[in-house]
């Protein structure tokens, strides 16, 4: 087990470190200006000049990926953090204590899941106005229920387990039991939910940007680049592959790291 943990830690750590270095580099320097166009270099395939080729405006895809990875990473991280933290708080309280608050919060979560995301985003744009911050709020809210539900069911199960009962008898406080004893049990579920959630956040950001929230063109985000690249699958397959690959690496690195950390414990 230890050895396995190390494999994951090392590989995940390496990929994550690489991606973080690239993202940080992107804040200061990119090989080309990510929005600079070049009519002569439209759809250039990957080469030494353009590592990942160029897009329909002759913009350097590598520079845009580097630039967009940073933006997408920050947005997705915030969204998943909001969803996950709020989900843990709501889910744990509901699952552990039950009763009326549980009934109410569960109803609210159901309502959010049933409420069309597109409509919620429209409402947020019209209340809070357009802007990058608002996409985080909109998606954050949308991401709460799935986390809450998973956490809730784990807590509901665990609170009946013998060791929790004995901890209670020994006088451990509710919060101590919830977060010291039960929460670690939910980690495997949470970790995979986080990596899927991260993925969804990157893509949802793109699907919402046409409402005016999220990244607006010509600035790049990985999600919007991936959806743009769809139109050019035939003329520039490297566009989709480069962008999709970056998303996969970004998420894979962190989920391997998470898996490694979990195994090590």
């Amino acid at each position: 087990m230890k050895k396995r943990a190390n494999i994951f830690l090392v590989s995940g750590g390496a990929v994550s470190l690489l991606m973080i270095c690239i993202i940080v580099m992107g804040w200061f320097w990119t090989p080309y200006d990510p929005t600079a166009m070049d009519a002569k270099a439209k759809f250039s395939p990957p080469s030494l000049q353009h590592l990942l080729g160029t897009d329909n405006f002759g913009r350097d895809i590598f520079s845009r990926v580097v630039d967009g990875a940073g933006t997408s990473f920050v947005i997705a991280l915030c969204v998943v953090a909001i969803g996950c933290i709020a989900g843990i708080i709501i889910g744990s309280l509901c699952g552990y204590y039950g009763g009326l608050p549980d009934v109410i919060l569960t109803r609210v979560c159901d309502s959010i899941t049933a409420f069309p995301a597109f409509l919620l985003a429209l409402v947020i744009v019209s209340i809070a106005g357009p802007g990058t911050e608002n996409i985080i709020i909109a998606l954050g809210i949308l991401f709460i229920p799935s986390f809450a539900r998973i956490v809730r069911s784990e807590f509901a199960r665990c609170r009946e387990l013998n060791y929790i009962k004995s901890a209670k008898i020994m006088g451990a406080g509710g919060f101590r039991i919830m977060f010291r004893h039960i929460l670690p049990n939910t980690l495997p579920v949470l970790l995979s939910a986080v990596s899927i959630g991260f993925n969804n956040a990157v893509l949802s950001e793109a699907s919402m940007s046409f409402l005016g929230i999220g990244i607006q063109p010509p600035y790049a985000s990985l999600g919007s680049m991936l959806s743009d690249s769809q139109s050019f699958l035939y003329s520039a397959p490297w566009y989709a592959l480069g962008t999709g690959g970056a998303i996969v690496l970004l998420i894979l690195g962190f989920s391997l790291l998470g898996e490694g950390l979990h195994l090590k414990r």
Partner: protein
Amino acid sequence: MAVIKRILAVFLAMAVTAGLLCGCGGTTTQNPGPSDETTDSSRADHGNEITVGIAQDLDDSLDPNLMTAAGTREVMFNVFEGLVKPNSDGDYVCAVASDYEKSEDGLTYTFTLRDGVVFHNGQSCTTDDVIYSFETCAATSVTSAVVTALSAITDISAQGNTITITLSAPNPDFISYVSSVYIMPKGYTEQSTAPVGTGPFRFVSRSVQENFILERNEDYYGEAAKLDKVTYKIYEDNNALFTALNSGALDLVAHLTIDQVNNLSNGYNVLEGTMNLVQALYLNNAVEPFDNELVRQALCYAVDVDSMLEFTAEGHGTKLGSSMYPAFGKYFDPALAEAYPYDVEKAKKLLAEAGYENGFSFTITVPSNYQPHVDTAVVLVEQLKAVGIDAQIQQVEWNTWLTEVYGNRNFEATVCGFDASTLNASALLARWVSDNDKNMINYNNALYDETFAQAQSAADESEQTALYKQCLEILSDTAANVYLQDLADFVAVNPELQGFTFYPLYVIDMSCLYFAD
């Protein structure tokens, strides 16, 4: 390049197949066999019917007076006809009327109803139906220009098989509005879901977000359509539409991009026309800094339309220079397109003169459902950087655009395209009169208002044309907007299918299509 593409394609194939196999975990799931409608079989036995791919749903009312979406009008052109109808040259030919006469003073029009015109529901068309159609259209049409033109009718009456229409004032464009009054049977109440007209095709069925089916009208008075049946398949994803086209499942797809055309591998005939749209960076003339003519002119000099066309359509498309597109040969003046050659220095000088030597920033609000406009905005932002102007793009959903930008005029600049709802210049020019309620940009120019009014009341056609041309010059001189292009429109057609004709309107005439033997 080609080699790399092929390698990448193989790589893609491997990656995905691997993914799928792993996902399946080795179990055998039955794949749907190759579809029945693969390229060759469908080509060989077309059964005299075609499948057309369209990129948006026909989600309107189908009532001819209530439909608004360009896509719906494009299809329903085949179902409905007026007393006269436009042909591909932009002239009017007789349809439900067999003949018409205009009095000397331009106040009386006499139409002779054609014999043997039968509605799709079997009813024959009478003068009562024609009068009913005019009255209904005047009362309910959602196209305000048509309503306004019809409101000048003081009397409409029938005698035998002639219909006489009397106007309160002459209107040289009147016949173009007559073509917008679709003739429908009196007393039929289900137009909005099961339309009945007199056109060469009759409506068969509509499946929401799936398909829309038309069949040949066997009782058509004129030369009957050659195709038995036209099925419109609705794709709301451009990529899926293209994949279906490329696999040979579709016989006709219009409004393709240059990129899709370049990648079409299936031996389609590709025809090029124009979209018949005035695409421009529309500037709100009432807000700072666009209330300053110098700033607007500076913007015109700062935008390089040739390079724009290069970026968005490999040079295809037509430069405009004013609110008119080339399909209106009579009014279109190519010289206006060159009025503001690309000149960064001149733009900077004009900006300095206007007091913006350090540039300024503004927001371009773009309707996000139409990718060509978004792409254009992206190029604009990049071009304006050269003169120190910092433009930001703000995408909005179509309904929000209609409400906020078009309705409330709450915007700084927007990229969109205006088309002509009727085949006359006023359809494009009336909106820039200062008190017109569709004057989205708050254009306010006394000379323009005057010239346009003169053109409207001119009895002589050549005089009217000259005045309309003058209107176009005023728009260009005052740089009302940064006029860009009429976008290129590519149509892929099954090579066995002949007779496709471009119209100066946004319509596709299915009755002229036929299979070559």
